[in-house]
């Protein structure tokens, strides 16, 4: 197959970013085409059907399901109030009367003459989709959602946890190889997005969380620390809904890995600006990577969202090794042999030759590199 390498993550200082903001169910779009929107503005809203509660009335009333209709005080489709009666028996002696109250407020959805079960539905839950980024509405999908476009810096991370949030971006270190340690977390970082160089240490995350930071970005994290942070071992990379107090994004991977120079430089250049970030990651079926968007008043030299690196492998292209023994190292393609080569594991695979930044030459399986956009 032609594409045996991993297309790179998108990292750009000036990009046109389009964000689809879609409702989970059909509803109402709250903005119009061409509107300028802010990140915390409602773009669309809908109502999710309310929770359902079932009550087995025949057990409570001591009747058969077929008789149940005679005892109902409320008809299908009518409203019910928690604590108010919905059914009662009519014995000759009033003293033996059994009354059943509604456990919730809502509507009576159905009464079954087969099972004697009554279904009550609570009022719908309103859901709002916010704009997430400052920008302009460039597309409206009636009843479904909108697309917001913005110009600015755009960085895809490799993995994240936690949902969408925003705040002022603050750089914590001087070099991409500097770790994010607890002593580097400032006490006055409430509401901010903190960015560091390489490893984000567990103590640093804890301190940032306690100080009220909205997000933290770094090159890598140890799996052990992620497990401590989440409280469980993450099995499948589908994230974004964790409630851990902040959003975490790593740009390179697991372990202590320096952030790519270009990523670091962009973050450095955006320090002090407002950033929108999302930790949502989904590796399988419709790949989704975490992202950092820093809208700017000017710019816009690149277009489109995602993708990237589609020019393919060619001599001189910059790349990063993404697996041992060269994991994290950056270099340039120096040769692209066509024939399969045997690597140390014994496998016959397609390889490329790379010259790393320090001049070292190596042979690497094509599957184990990621292109870096320049």
């Amino acid at each position, binding site marked *: 197959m032609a594409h045996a390498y991993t297309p790179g993550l998108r990292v750009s200082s000036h990009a046109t970013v389009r964000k689809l903001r879609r409702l989970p169910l059909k509803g109402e779009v709250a903005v119009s085409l061409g509107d300028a929107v802010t990140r915390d503005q409602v773009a669309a809203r809908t109502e999710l*059907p309310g929770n359902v509660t079932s009550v087995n009335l025949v057990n409570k009333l001591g009747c058969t399901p077929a008789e149940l209709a005679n005892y109902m005080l409320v008809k299908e489709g009518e409203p019910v109030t928690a604590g108010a009666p919905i059914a009662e028996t009519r014995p000759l002696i009033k003293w033996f009367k059994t009354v059943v109250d509604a456990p919730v407020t809502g509507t009576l*959805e159905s009464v079954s003459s087969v099972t004697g079960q009554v279904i009550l539905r609570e009022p719908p839950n309103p859901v709002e989709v916010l704009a997430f980024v400052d920008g302009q509405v460039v597309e409206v999908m009636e009843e479904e959602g909108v697309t917001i476009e913005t110009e600015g810096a755009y960085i895809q991370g490799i993995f994240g946890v936690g949902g969408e949030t925003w705040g002022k971006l603050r750089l914590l270190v001087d070099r991409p190889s500097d770790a994010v340690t607890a002593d580097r977390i400032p006490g006055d970082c409430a509401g901010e997005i903190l960015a560091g160089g390489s490893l984000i240490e567990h103590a640093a995350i804890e301190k940032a969380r306690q100080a009220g930071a909205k997000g933290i970005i770094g090159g890598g994290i*140890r*799996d052990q620390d992620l497990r401590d942070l989440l409280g469980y071992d993450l099995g499948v*990379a589908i994230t974004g809904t964790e409630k851990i107090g902040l959003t975490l994004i790593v740009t390179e*991977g697991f372990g202590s890995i320096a952030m790519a120079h270009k990523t670091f430089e962009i973050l450095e250049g955006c320090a002090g600006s407002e950033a929108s970030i999302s930790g949502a990651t989904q590796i399988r*079926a419709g790949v989704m990577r975490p992202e950092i968007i820093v809208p700017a008043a000017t710019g816009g030299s690149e277009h489109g969202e995602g993708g990237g690196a589609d020019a393919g492998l060619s001599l001189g292209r910059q790349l990063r090794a993404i697996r041992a023994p060269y994991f994290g190292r950056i270099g340039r393609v120096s040769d692209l042999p066509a024939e399969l080569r045997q690597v140390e594991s014994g496998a016959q695979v397609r390889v490329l030759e790379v010259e790393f930044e320090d001049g070292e030459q190596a042979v690497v399986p094509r599957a184990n590199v*990621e292109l870096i956009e320049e």
Partner: protein
Amino acid sequence: MSEINVVVATDCGSTTTKAILIEKQGDLYRQTYRGEAPTTVEAPFEDVTRGVLNSIQEVEELSGRRILDGERVITPASGDEGVDIYISTSSAGGGLQMMVAGVVQSMTGESAQRCALGAGAIVMDVLAANDKRLPHEKIERIRQLRPDMVLVSGGTDGGTVSHVVELAEFIAAADPKPRFGSTFELPVIFAGNADAAPEIEKTLGATTALTVTENIRPVLERENLGPARQVIHDLFLEHVMAQAPGYQKLIELTGAPIMPTPGAVGEIMQTIARRQGINVIGVDIGGATTDVFSVFDQLFNRTVSANLGMSYSISNVLAAAGIENVTRWVPFAIDEADLRDRIKNKMIRPTTIPQLLEELQIEHAIAREALRLAFVQHRELAVGLKGVQSERTLSDAFDQTATGESLIQMMQLDLLVGSGGVLSHAPSRNQAAALLIDAFQPEGVTRLAVDSIFMMPHLGVLSTVSEQAATDVFARDCLIYLGTCVAPVHAEKAGSACATYEVALPDGTHQGELKAGGLHQLPLATGETAGLTIRPVRGVDAGAGPGQELKIPVHGGVAGLIIDARGRPLQFAADAGARTDQIAAWTRALNLYGD
């Protein structure tokens, strides 16, 4: 249909679409050429036929046969042009995802699960009247899931109506939405008590695309899974596939119904087991899921372990198995934190491959655990019917055999087939053999094989149009025989004598004493057969019964004859250092990774 001489078949996987060409040569069908291309279900293409045509085009280029006329498959074959039929399977877009429901979890619930799994589905949840969840929890769960289809069973014919209707009421209240397409109605199959059908129709008929079919458990003593499975296949085509990008075009291209990939694999395994009169276990270990198939005494079972796999789900293997169970297979000491980071890095960059030997050994350790756990799950479901009444005499009261006994009898297993990248593309075939033996722990005499290029799905769907063609190709081109594993069952102390053996190999007769804990490899090439005699000591069973001599012909393969005297289940040294030495010894015995 007129005679079939040339067939092109594709399997549309999540990432790759694989095409094979099958041609009749003399009296035999052979697989001659293959091609592959990236699957094009997702953006930017959103048309599965692009990948299909690309893969067929590769076959055209390699074979010199013109198969396509633009976007049309040329049929029938004439000279060097066209094919007699084009067939396909598909698991793209996450395959077929189903939710099933039954009244009693261990009875109709399990039958419904077996029915859906056998049809090739992933079962997202099993809803049952006695599943210990409160009504609102059940409804909430149904709402959260977005299945492609729901199968409702429950009640033997003439049995309970109210419990089945109650399940339907929960489903109606939840109003579940299908995964694909926001406009079409969710397909629901009712295969339960026939007496409940009118009420089910009343409850679900208006809001879902309801199909009523024969009861999957008409009486407790018998399962009737065929009709419901057929309905699942039909609805898969009509509803699920029809919603997926480009499938309408694909349906028009094919000359036989498109099957879900695992359904097709099940089909070929049943065909082979029936025609050869053997018991078979097959496993397909992928990046996200692991499927296990078994046919014992013609009874077919399939399970899918949705979160056990070698890339997307690799981290879940670690979580499910525990770090100790993974590291016990690694023949060197490794730091736990480092191992965890490596596994997570594979999860987030699933297409990378091991460059270092050490990394390959770690992946093989994880594969053993993924296969082992998937087989544990398979054993739990591949059981006899539960809830069956049996006559018991007074003497039986002391013999506590329950219904629901395992159908998997490892001593009766004839053939163990593996497929999936880690097995089919292992740098050495000995490695594939070792993974299968360590994970499944076959007992007695068992042949081992791998599906070289994952051709079983194609052959499964082919078997529905030409059983002869499918079995010819299966026997000659599909499998690479690894050899035979001979494993006497014992729990003897390491080093103690457990059997003597004698085997007439092409290079002369080998004989010797088997010591407990030993592992031996003898050369016996593909196509060769040797007479084996094993004389186990008292209490040790080589296949003829405890202490009984076994004389049997054994078949060769690329990994030869493997005599595994390590006992069952495998015993690991308690001490970490001794355990590393033990694994290193096993590794050397089969020459798994060179020097």
